[in-house]
């Protein structure tokens, strides 16, 4: 691990200002992804700002009838919250489908949104990777790509966003609240938070230098039945090949998000009107324009089959 200096944050605004003016600074919350990458020297921050002292660890009711989830709320505490289990079960289920108990106890809401891809070529510093080293090329294209992206990919990168929590948040139309280095607060719809790789795959999201996530808000509950189906190579503690987050109403209408297929939580709202007609009417619209590799071509039909399983369970 490269040396770094360390400070404990005193206020969100001061933390954002410090991160904005310090070259190579990063925030640290749970640290479960950042420290892993620092040990491999894939992440090499020169300064860490610990946001734990900020007390952003509460889940509060909002005036609009939703919830405001502090940036530092752990995955376990969020998934176990009585209101989340009752009104946003898709979120509880998505979180519990990810990582291990030990990691969920430490990983935070903001950190989970910011976790880096698990593309094996990103992790192997001997390989070309435009995300790790811009301009070095992409060894995943034409390499071992079974786990990687099939839609929204570019010629520079086929990495996926690896998380589960954000797929559910995308279905729930969550909003990411931040404070920028200049002290200005902003609210970013989760649909706009993560980027597609394009020709700049080293940039995962729209946060500006120094910008700090302070909370994620959920609008009023949607009702309906909540699902998170995750298809993976192992029954527990594995990343998704394909996952489906869905909220389905009694009349068959609903919302669908797809994980494991793209550089961001994947959702095509226009396709959802066809949900009452079944998965075969919806999945081709969600996956229109897919550009799979030979290795991961199976993901495209797998999205439809996983959605069909969800809709069958919703009807039962």
């Amino acid at each position, binding site marked *: 691990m490269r040396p770094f200096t*360390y400070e404990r944050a005193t206020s969100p605004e001061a933390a954002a200002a410090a991160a904005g003016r310090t070259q190579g600074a990063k925030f640290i919350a749970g*640290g479960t992804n950042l420290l892993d990458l620092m040990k491999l020297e894939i992440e090499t921050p020169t300064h*860490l700002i610990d946001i734990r002292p900020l007390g952003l660890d509460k889940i509060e009711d909002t005036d609009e009838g939703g919830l405001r989830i502090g940036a530092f709320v752990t995955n376990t505490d969020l998934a176990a919250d009585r209101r989340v289990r009752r009104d946003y079960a898709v979120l509880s289920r998505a979180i*519990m489908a990810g990582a291990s108990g*030990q990691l969920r*106890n430490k990983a935070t809401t903001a950190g989970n949104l910011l976790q880096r891809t698990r593309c094996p070529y990103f992790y192997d510093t001997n390989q070309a990777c435009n995300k790790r080293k811009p301009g070095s090329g992409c060894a995943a294209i034409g390499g071992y790509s079974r786990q990687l992206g099939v839609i929204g990919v570019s010629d520079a990168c086929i990495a996926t966003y690896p998380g589960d929590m954000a797929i559910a948040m995308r279905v729930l139309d969550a909003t990411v609240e931040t404070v920028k280095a200049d002290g200005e607060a902003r609210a970013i719809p989760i649909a706009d938070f993560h980027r597609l790789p394009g020709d700049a795959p080293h940039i995962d999201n729209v946060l500006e230098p120094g910008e700090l996530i302070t909370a994620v808000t959920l609008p009023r509950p949607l009702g309906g039945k909540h699902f998170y189906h995750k298809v993976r190579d192992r029954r*527990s503690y594995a990343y998704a090949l394909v996952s489906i987050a869905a909220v389905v109403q009694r009349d068959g209408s609903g919302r669908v998000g797809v994980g494991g297929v793209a550089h961001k939580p994947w959702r095509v709202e226009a396709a959802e009107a066809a949900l009452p007609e079944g998965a075969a009417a919806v999945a081709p619209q969600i996956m229109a324009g897919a550009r799979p590799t030979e290795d991961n071509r199976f993901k495209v039909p797998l999205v439809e089959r996983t959605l069909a399983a969800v809709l069958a369970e919703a009807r039962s």
Partner: protein
Amino acid sequence: MASPLNPDVSRRGVIVGSAATVAAGGTAPLNAQGPRMTTPPGPTLPVQFKVNGEDRRLDLDPRVTLLDALREHLQLTGSKKGCDHGQCGACTVIVNGRRINSCLSLAVMHEGDQITTIEGLGTPDNLHPMQRAFVVHDGYQCGYCTPGQICSAVAVLDEIKDGIPSHATADVTDRPRATADEMRERMSGNICRCGAYSNIIEAMSDVAGTRA
């Protein structure tokens, strides 16, 4: 644990002793933080926490993980370093009542925390019920993952008691129960290379008062 040949000599004592001999012979001792610590330590920072009920105060390079602080600075070598990347669970300790991977956490970020390691759960003369159950049900072979397995198992039963759902909980609004399926799912972050999994579930079921 005492050696059967010489009750006053422990394996750890022998290892520490030989390292000191090597150092005295002019060879630099291995860096406590392992091969990834490629540059000399920078300025240290003070941190204070409680380990197994005892106040501890350390001055540490900020790169030192909680695991290395426990093993190399406090000589609590029960917690093991397996993968050092949060994948195997050998380093599992309980912090403020919840289990974590101590290898993926900086020690300086634990100011004021209450940390319980395998050494704090029980003693050879007075085993924790989970330690006793692992012995009774033969929940290990080589034993390397066992301290992490036991810390995790103790915390898993508390998580179930506290109503925290898991991927195996059919209805997340229900109170979870300590079924074999629930415990298997919750223990997936602890890898056992010897494959003692079925006996570990037997041990946990015994302590939970359920049948595996």
